[in-house]
């Protein structure tokens, strides 16, 4: 691998990211699966870095899931998106930041489509007006939340309590980065680093002291694939794709996986359990899996937030081996305590994949 070659490509794919004044739209999936991630993204941006990030309780799904599941036509998705833009306009913001990769892809795709077909945009404006009596301005910038974290990666590194380094050996941790398909595969110039070698996550890993590993199936989809997962009969296809990725990364012995998509961390995490139950195979050390994190979770860990506050206990794959490597202080007994420290039940342990 020639690092300079990648740098050369990265220089071709840099995008302008305003540093402040963002209208934030949450992700449907992440609010359920990783609510702490979005909470800590806002916390990091607002409290730590002092940025102006606004969110509206009126915003809805962007329609991306339904669109990718072929259950609604694109015009419907466009009208939903137009409403979000209207909310942003009403709130007086010009920069849109999305929590979800599919939303990011959806917004980008719609804006690009409108650019090519202005008559379509006019029709959507009409649709929105008829339906909601709202009007909107198109955002000046659309960014994904990971773009922002990438932008602030060095500020985060400066404030870091821990680094992505194995405290026992002093060696950098080996991190697999997994980019959501809808981030830049459709519009390479909309992603930091392009589509082939995006650096949005690898940049974070680099600045936080870790070592990015580049394995053959790096580009491959996590296996979620909307329709492939949503229909139970197709789930074998979904898990087979995930399996392919793990088989490909296995020889590199990664310590963790960082992702920037709602579905990816969920499936890369949960499918490790399914694979272990079906094949008896686990990919981490000593029977553990490879822990999978959202970029906010990893940023939170680096910044020293409590892992259980970050919601890491709801992961399938045990995160403790990584916490130990990083030297993160945590209370194992607090793992399954509720908000008021009341004891929640401990989940049943899988038969094969080692968990706590």
């Amino acid at each position, binding site marked *: *691998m*020639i690092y300079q*070659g990648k740098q*050369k*490509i990265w220089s071709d794919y840099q995008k302008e990211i305003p540093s402040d004044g963002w209208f934030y739209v949450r992700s449907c999936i992440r609010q359920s699966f990783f609510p702490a991630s979005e909470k800590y993204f806002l916390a990091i941006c607002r409290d730590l870095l002092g940025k102006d990030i606004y969110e509206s309780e009126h915003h809805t799904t962007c329609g991306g899931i339904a669109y990718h599941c072929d259950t609604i036509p694109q015009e419907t998705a466009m009208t939903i998106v137009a409403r979000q833009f209207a909310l942003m306009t009403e709130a007086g913001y010009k920069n849109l930041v999305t929590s979800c990769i599919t939303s990011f892809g959806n917004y980008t795709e719609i804006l690009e489509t409108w650019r090519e077909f202005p008559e379509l945009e006019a029709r959507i404006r009409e649709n929105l007006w008829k339906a909601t009596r709202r009007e909107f301005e198109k955002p000046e910038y659309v960014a994904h939340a990971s773009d922002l974290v990438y932008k602030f990666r060095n500020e985060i590194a400066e404030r870091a309590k821990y680094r992505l380094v194995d405290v026992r050996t002093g060696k950098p941790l080996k991190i697999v980065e997994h980019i959501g398909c809808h981030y830049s595969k459709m519009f390479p110039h909309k992603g930091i680093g392009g589509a082939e070698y995006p650096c949005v996550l690898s940049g974070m890993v680099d600045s936080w002291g870790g070592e990015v590993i580049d394995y053959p199936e790096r*580009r491959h989809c996590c296996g979620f694939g909307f329709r492939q997962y949503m229909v139970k009969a197709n789930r074998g296809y979904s898990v087979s794709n995930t399996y392919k990725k793990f088989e490909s990364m296995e020889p590199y012995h990664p310590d963790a996986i960082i992702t920037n998509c709602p579905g990816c961390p969920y499936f890369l995490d949960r499918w490790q359990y399914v694979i272990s139950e079906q094949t008896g195979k686990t990919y981490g050390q000593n029977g553990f899996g490879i822990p999978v994190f959202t970029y906010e979770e990893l940023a939170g860990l680096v910044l020293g937030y409590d892992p259980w506050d970050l919601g890491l206990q709801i992961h399938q794959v045990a995160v403790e081996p990584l916490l130990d490597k990083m030297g993160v202080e945590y209370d194992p007994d607090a793992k399954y305590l509720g908000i008021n420290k009341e004891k929640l039940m401990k989940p049943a342990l899988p038969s094969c994949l080692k968990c706590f």
Partner: protein
Amino acid sequence: MDSQTVLIIGGGVAGMEAARQLRLLGCEPVIVEKSDHLGGHVAGWHKLFPDMLSASSLIERMSESLDGITVYLKTQVASMNRLKDGFSVMLTNGTGLLCRAVLIASGFRLFEASRKEEYGYGVYDRVITNSDLEYWFNTGEDDRIPDNLSNIAFVHCVGSRDLKAGNPQCSKVCCMTAVKQAIEMKERFPDAEIWCFYMDLRLFGKKYEDFYINAQRDYGVHFVRGRVSEVSEDIDGRVILKAEDTLAGRQVKLKADLLVLMAGMLCNEDTAGLASMVRAEVDSDGFLRSRDNIFRINESSRPGIFFAGACTGTKTVPETVAEARAAALDIRNYLNGND
């Protein structure tokens, strides 16, 4: 103007042959070459199909025939102005000259293979181009080529017939070059399996089909119809190619020790600048526009401006040589007023 001076822009095969012919026809050719050597791309090549002629000996022979002709190396045209019956030219080395006619023989440039990011040229250790391979044939120097090779892959049409790479045209010579290089590699690595990934095999010229049959029959080169979609690097540094075998209708993967990208031919980046100096036209494919592509391929739409070789489109060496001779004759007729 009584001068018989003809400015030849470009000292590749086309420029050199045109200069030789022009002198034989009684003109005074002057060659301006931007690099530090004559021979253009061919000078860096190893062997030329279909006769496997040594490229360096060809260039040497052609250079010898230029004895006494003014050649400015490391020089470009700074400005060029049309006079009543000729051109006033200023070169970057400060020389000014008056000439009756200009022959543009500025050739082509190789597609920058790193622009096909998915193939990882410049990123992966074992990815080289056709031109790198010729350089290695000549010098034996390239760290990317290991001593033991068990699988070698050639990918045709890199930067050709590819809208996304900005060049929808066929580069014409790459298929044959790939077949030639595949044979040459098999001769060097008899135990290696060689795989050529092609979209269409465009082997149109004299003896080209013989090469193809030989490659199949005598060298056992595998031809896989399908464009490589992406390349990744394995933990041991080898490259993994993904493609569809479109004839079998199945996805194929190949772990190769060396990947050779058949970079296509594009118009030289400074050709458009040259064209604008003399108000010659650029065609839709980026190459210079001939008066027509059948009968007057050597002529521009402007009097006194002539073309030869790959500045008007992808050409093989013999085609370029033939065009250079034709252009010399056209120029001579132009100077004599026999248009």
